[in-house]
């Protein structure tokens, strides 16, 4: 028996809409974030197996996956339609633990919106296994999915002009960590010393799409 919950992640039966994006790319639109992640994982599996040559960029996003640099989008489009896409399994992708000091300026406000005391926030976040759904905004900024609906938050009404590098932040259905100082409107709950972006490292981004993330609590200083 499938509950509505498991049904929503069964991407194999989900409709897939292929939209044109110029003459060398396809924008593949899925029903939702879970389906987009499952499709992206399947695309990476097939690329790794060497059965999809000639793709330059694969850009996952919230509801879509962009496939760019195609010599023949028509044939890739026809092939994609034949795929059966299994839902994501919980242990897919590497797991990274990010130590967090819960010293963010919005911690009390977030706790209030969640209906708990601030000292419960580390445990609430730390109990979740999040997953990098996609990157954007800045090099190495990963949008972490996996927050239950009850923990979704609005952005701040007024964005900050400078959010420090390493800020652990929440907005909408996502969590994220600012790889460098930049303007931002997300709610800041803590700080990490983890290096999110290092161009001399391979890969340069700590949080590449498909990476699983767990926030662990580090003692305050």
């Amino acid at each position, binding site marked *: 028996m499938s509950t509505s919950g498991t049904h929503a992640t069964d991407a194999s039966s989900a409709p897939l809409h292929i939209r*044109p994006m110029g*003459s060398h790319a396809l924008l593949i639109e899925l029903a939702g974030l879970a389906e987009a992640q499952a499709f992206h994982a399947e695309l990476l599996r097939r690329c790794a197996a060497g059965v999809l040559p000639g793709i330059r960029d694969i850009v996952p*996003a919230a509801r*879509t996956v962009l496939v760019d640099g195609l010599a023949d989008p028509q044939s890739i489009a026809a092939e994609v339609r034949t795929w059966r896409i299994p839902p994501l399994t919980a242990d897919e992708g590497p797991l990274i633990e990010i130590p967090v000091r819960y010293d963010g300026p919005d911690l009390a406000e977030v706790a209030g919106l969640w209906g708990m005391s601030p000292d419960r926030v580390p445990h609430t976040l730390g109990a979740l296994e999040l997953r990098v759904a996609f*990157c954007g905004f800045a090099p190495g900024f990963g949008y972490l999915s996996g927050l239950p609906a009850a923990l979704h938050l609005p952005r701040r009404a007024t964005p900050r002009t400078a959010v420090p590098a390493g800020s652990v932040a929440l907005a909408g259905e996502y969590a994220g960590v600012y790889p460098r100082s930049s303007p931002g409107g997300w709610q800041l709950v803590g700080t990490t010393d983890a290096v999110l972006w290092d161009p001399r490292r391979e890969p340069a981004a700590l949080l590449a799409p498909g990476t699983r993330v767990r926030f662990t609590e580090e003692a305050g200083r």
Partner: protein
Amino acid sequence: MSTENTAEAPEGPAALDVVRPGALTTVQDAGRPGHAHLGVPRSGALDPPAHRLANRLVGNPPETAVLETTLDGVTVRVRARTPVTVAVTGAPAPVRVDGRPAPWGAPVRVPDGALLDIGRPTAGLRAYVAFAGGVCAEAVLGSRSTDLLSGLGPAPLAPGAVLPLGRAHAVPPAPDSVPWQAPPAELVLPLLLGPRHDWFTADALRTLASSGYRVSPSANRIGLRTEGPVLTRARHDELPSEGMVWGAVQVPPDGLPVVFLADHPVTGGYPVIGVVPEDRLPAAAQAVPGTLIRFDVRRPVRY
């Protein structure tokens, strides 16, 4: 031989001293394709054929880093033990070595200590200046390109900055002629509809096909902003961010189309009405503000 304003030949490798950076001069090569999934823009020369040709004229591999100037050229002093071969392509512009006229679109030997000046183009916007051996700014993710959106790569040129040059290869015979297409009075950009043309009214699609737009003065390496009639949306809900490509024509809330160029964001949350093919983007990058643009709208491919 060295010129009179050089006290002694430099000991180190060849380099450029920036004297006048112009409105905007950056180091550019073929950019960083393949890193979009990490949030890294593609970047690279906006006029790739001009970039490759400049390198060919000085005997460099085609993807070697060069200088890309904007609007009013650049002035650098060359420091080298032996003369450096230089070539200027892209927008045709006056080239001077220590004040003496030198050819555009051909290899030029620049001796140690000489001042190389590229002036304001007579047509077009961006000139490409290749140096034998290449501009050796530090590479990030395999590219020396300056990315103005994300800040990756070397900083734009500033007065007093020093850029090292690499070791030169043998200079091949120069081609007899350099192909160059003068920018037309009207920039016609084919536009393949999709992926989000259905977010616009039928009126908006007619307006796009039948009206002229002009290149905005705020156009830059991120996008060719335009001025003209507003495109009205049929849907007003929020579009979740999705992947973007070079040439994507995004329509922000002001309703004016923006043709994304090399430093475009990897994802965007405004609908893309259509895409300009890559082979027309060099012409788009050479269009000066005020140039008339006509979009030649083509039906979307059905998959």
